[in-house]
């Protein structure tokens, strides 16, 4: 009987070596595609803005309610130079960031528990199912009763709003994790914490990010809405008060800032997502 070769050459090994991620030609094509996407977003925006400017200048629309974009931008520039926008923006951003953390962290923890243990899911899910459809903004008066005036009720409002999307997507993400992978880590002597940290969280992450994206947007929305009624500081509060004193150009200037913040938050979460799931199959 012939002895088996010590290190057999395997036919399967002539399979192509893994291609390096994103070769040269592909990356330049990607840049071009990215530029095209930016153009598709920017061009309509510019067209609408220019049309607006022209229509107002031609006197077809009253400039009282719709000041021309040039006026809005120069007002915005003034507010920036006076330092008002910066101060108010920081206050609002701090509230949104705190709310996002306060809402998201418990949502991830609870979502992991509910997603992993069907027992907890059965107990807690009815509560979630009942409270989820309730318009959360309606409890703002209650939050004002509980937390008084100031930042606390605003943060609480935004935190509650962004809690739900993250909870729901974390549950879905954790349930979608391949059970074999959990078994692999636990049979190899992994502790529960290691299973959570090395398999469940990273496995659920792509789905969880859908919740983070929704949650971040909703947190900003709730924060602005809460500022309208119960704050004197913050970008939302300013927007509201300029409407009340009928400084429409200043109101618009603040709206522009809010829009930019909204976009920035969306792109920030998207960027975080690409960093977090780098190297994975797309």
């Amino acid at each position, binding site marked *: *009987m*012939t*002895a*088996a*070769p*010590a*290190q*057999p*050459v*395997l*036919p*399967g*090994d002539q*399979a192509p*070596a*893994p*291609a390096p991620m994103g070769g040269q030609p592909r990356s330049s094509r990607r840049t071009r595609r990215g530029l095209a996407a930016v153009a598709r977003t920017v061009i309509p925006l510019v067209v609408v803005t220019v049309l607006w400017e022209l229509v107002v200048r031609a006197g077809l629309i009253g400039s009282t309610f719709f000041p021309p974009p040039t006026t809005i931008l120069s007002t915005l520039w003034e507010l920036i130079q006076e330092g008002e926008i910066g101060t108010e923006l920081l206050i609002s951003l701090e509230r949104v960031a705190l709310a996002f953390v306060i809402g998201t962290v418990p949502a991830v923890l609870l979502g992991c528990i509910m997603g992993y243990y069907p027992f907890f899911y059965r107990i807690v899910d009815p509560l979630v199912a009942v409270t989820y459809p309730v318009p959360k903004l309606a409890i703002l008066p209650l939050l004002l009763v509980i937390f008084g005036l100031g930042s606390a009720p605003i943060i609480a409002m935004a935190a509650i709003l962004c809690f739900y999307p993250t909870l729901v997507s974390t549950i879905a993400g954790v349930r979608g994790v*391949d059970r*074999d*992978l959990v*078994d*692999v*880590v*636990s*049979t*190899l*002597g*992994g*502790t529960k914490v*290691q299973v959570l940290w*090395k*398999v469940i969280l*990273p*496995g659920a992450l792509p789905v969880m990010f859908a919740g983070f994206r929704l949650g971040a947007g909703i947190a900003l929305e709730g924060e602005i809405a809460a500022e309208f009624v119960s704050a004197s500081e913050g970008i939302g509060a300013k927007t509201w008060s300029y409407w009340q004193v009928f400084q429409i150009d200043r109101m618009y200037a603040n709206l522009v800032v809010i829009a930019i913040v909204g976009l920035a938050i969306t792109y920030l979460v998207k960027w975080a997502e690409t960093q977090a*799931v780098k*190297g*994975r*199959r797309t």
Partner: protein
Amino acid sequence: MAAAKVTISDLSVVFPPHDDGEEPVRAVDALSLDVAENEFVCIVGPSGCGKSTVLKVLAGLVPPTAGGFEIAPDPEAALPVAMVWQGDALIPWRTILDNVAMPLELRGVSKRERHERAREHLDRLALTQFARAYPHQLSGGMRQRAGIARALIADASVLLMDEPFGALDAQTRLVLQEQILDLWERERKTLVFVTHSIEESLLLGDRVVVMSARPGRIREIIDVPFARPRNRDVTRTQAFQDQAGEIWALLRQDARRAEQFA
């Protein structure tokens, strides 16, 4: 025969029904089996005969309904068992290197040391150049070899393999069978290998445990007479064909019945 490494005694596993009105499934019924130290045991049987369940019990993933098992403690091994899965069960977002290094990572071995040792294991399974690749970039056979490397690095007292080549194409399968023979020749690990291929079980095992369909019981245990080290040539001998025919005669009825259920 050397001292028993794995002792399975009167093991029964009953799965509760998924829905009301369904019958509970008796997957394994009063199964007893001893596996000696350094022995290569193959369990063969029709689909649904509970052979995978036996492995899952040994891996601690499924609790026995009755009876139990014992794995002789081995102070030199880091873990009682390590498993190679039917699907490769590699973690898709980790590189092959980090997948193979995982058992050491779980034990808190430093990154440098675990990568070094993982590279040694990749070398042994001819995967050196794929260390930085992700599982989806590899062929099924390479992935399965990475799964084997991961089980070997775990330094377990007993290796469990659950139809590791079941999902591979026929040629890759032949190659990996020879690799496993080779590897076992060098390591002489205690190995319990589940398969539905009669030929595979005879080629690889010291003994072949033939199981019957639900409820899973042992039909017969066959001592494989072929000398080691073995290679594929043995499958072409008349003795091999006769032995395979005998096992097929044992399984035929059950296999037909399983087919009708499916």
